[in-house]
């Protein structure tokens, strides 16, 4: 049964194709498209029934215009920048500070360490900050790469961004340097870092050996300890791969909860089949319903699939999230979906603030209007900080690849890569590769 029409690309030549979303013989939702040269492609996009697929959609259809959109020639998804066709102004911006890496993971969307062009210079980084401010900033900044901690000037990069007026910085890292240099987390915190987005794929070394090429669990734990000591918020980020760590979802959640409040949340990333990916794309990649089923099954129903909703600021089919309050006895209470979630958001700004507040470490609570000299309200401050620190966020984002790319989703993307050659490019366009590994944007 036909559900809707959209546009996608051919996985082999990345040519723009009309695509149809429809339910298949098994009741799940698929996307089908036909390339005149390379034939027909059908991909699973929702491992659940039509009702659940339609129910997941949020009502937020309000659009935003990018600030100073780029003039385009070829159209979406070939010359992003962002262009006037895009429906979001952006929330989180990725700065790829280097392509160098101290690991050589079999799986890496950025194909880091391969050609390793020169790192972005401080002047280039300053230009990127200025570009962001001129195009709708401040945004939340994710410092990425490669492995950004291989740069010794990382604290200066964060300091410069703070001076430029950006107020939330998260570091996308494998955690090795944070583990090895005890005072490194403190240095980053002092420079203005809020959150460590820690690659954390599992709770035993076999997972790391498969996905990262070496045993790393001890380093991850030491990195967490050092971040906690420094007061940096930690978000654990497991890349979920069928057959490798999808049986550890419940253990990961329990582990994360045990490490609150320094661990602020967990962010699952089902693996995307782009960039350097030595794994074959399975016929049934992980989609949102499967991820939610794994969460419910492996927590024994403590967290339920029904607790979750799709993002309100981005396209709802790109992400899922729920927030819980940890009670004194350790039990969890689901926070109403409108509280502590993005579905109340009307756009990128709300989402930016929500992420910054939920994922920040201690000592960076939201500021309120200044009180007069005669007021002293630390009891209220303490309560609010405790409430915030006892809130735990479970979220995830399902990136698109050339098989399941849906331009309707792409046009509402609010996570962009910053690249001086193009401007702001939605994450899934920037990282899109064809079956031969050729990219539209990435060098």
């Amino acid at each position: 049964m036909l559900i809707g029409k959209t546009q996608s690309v051919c996985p082999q030549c990345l040519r723009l194709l009309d695509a149809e979303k429809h339910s298949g013989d098994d009741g799940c939702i698929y996307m089908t498209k036909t390339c005149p040269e390379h034939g027909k492609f059908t991909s699973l996009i929702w491992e659940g029934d039509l009702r659940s697929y339609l129910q997941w959609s949020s009502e937020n259809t309000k659009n935003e215009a990018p600030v100073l959109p780029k003039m385009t020639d070829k159209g979406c998804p070939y010359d992003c920048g962002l262009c006037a066709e895009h429906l979001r102004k952006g929330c989180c911006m990725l700065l790829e500070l280097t392509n160098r890496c101290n690991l050589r993971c079999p799986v890496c969307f950025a194909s880091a360490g391969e050609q390793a062009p020169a790192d972005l210079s401080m002047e280039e980084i300053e230009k990127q900050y200025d570009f962001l401010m001129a195009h709708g900033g401040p945004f939340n900044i994710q410092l990425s790469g490669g492995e950004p901690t291989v740069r010794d000037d990382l604290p200066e990069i964060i300091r410069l961004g703070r001076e430029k007026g950006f107020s939330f910085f998260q570091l996308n890292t494998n955690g090795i340097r944070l583990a090895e240099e005890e005072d490194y987390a403190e240095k980053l915190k002092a420079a203005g870092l809020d959150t460590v987005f820690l690659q954390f794929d599992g709770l035993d070394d076999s997972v790391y050996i498969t996905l990262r090429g070496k045993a790393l669990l001890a380093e991850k734990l030491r990195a967490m300890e050092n971040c906690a000591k420094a007061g940096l918020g930690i978000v654990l980020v497991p890349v979920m791969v069928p057959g490798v760590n999808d049986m550890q979802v419940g253990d990961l959640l329990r582990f994360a909860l045990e490490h609150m409040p320094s661990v602020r949340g967990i962010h699952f990333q089902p693996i995307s089949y782009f960039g350097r990916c030595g794994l074959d794309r399975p016929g049934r990649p992980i989609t949102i319903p499967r991820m939610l089923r794994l969460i419910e099954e492996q927590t024994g129903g403590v967290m339920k699939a029904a607790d979750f909703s799709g993002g309100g600021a981005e396209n709802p089919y790109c992400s899922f999230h729920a927030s819980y309050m940890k009670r004194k006895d350790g039990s969890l209470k689901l926070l109403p979906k409108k509280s502590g979630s993005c579905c109340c958001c009307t756009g990128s700004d709300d989402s930016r603030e929500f992420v910054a507040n939920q994922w920040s470490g201690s000592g960076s609570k939201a500021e309120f209007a200044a009180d007069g000299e005669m007021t002293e309200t630390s009891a209220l401050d303490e309560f609010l900080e405790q409430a915030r620190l006892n809130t735990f966020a479970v979220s995830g984002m399902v990136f698109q690849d050339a098989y399941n790319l849906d331009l309707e989703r792409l046009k509402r993307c609010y996570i962009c890569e910053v690249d001086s050659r193009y401007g702001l490019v939605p994450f899934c366009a920037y990282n899109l590769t064809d079956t031969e590994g050729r990219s539209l944007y990435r060098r």
Partner: protein
Amino acid sequence: MQDKNYYTIDPEGKLKCMKCGVALEKGKAKFMYLDNGFPVELPVCPQCGFVYVPEELALGKVLSVEKALEDK
């Protein structure tokens, strides 16, 4: 109906109690909400005990506390 004022601000910018005509002083007060008490210090009238709650406080922290307690 005209809004009732409980305080005035003198030319030096200091808060005065409208009823008693004396300057407010820093004093202890307690916000009670859903069985939770939050001791705070606010400008208080030394004579009648009137407590001045700045608007930013009411619409800022106090509102946030209410939201957190009620999961609003």
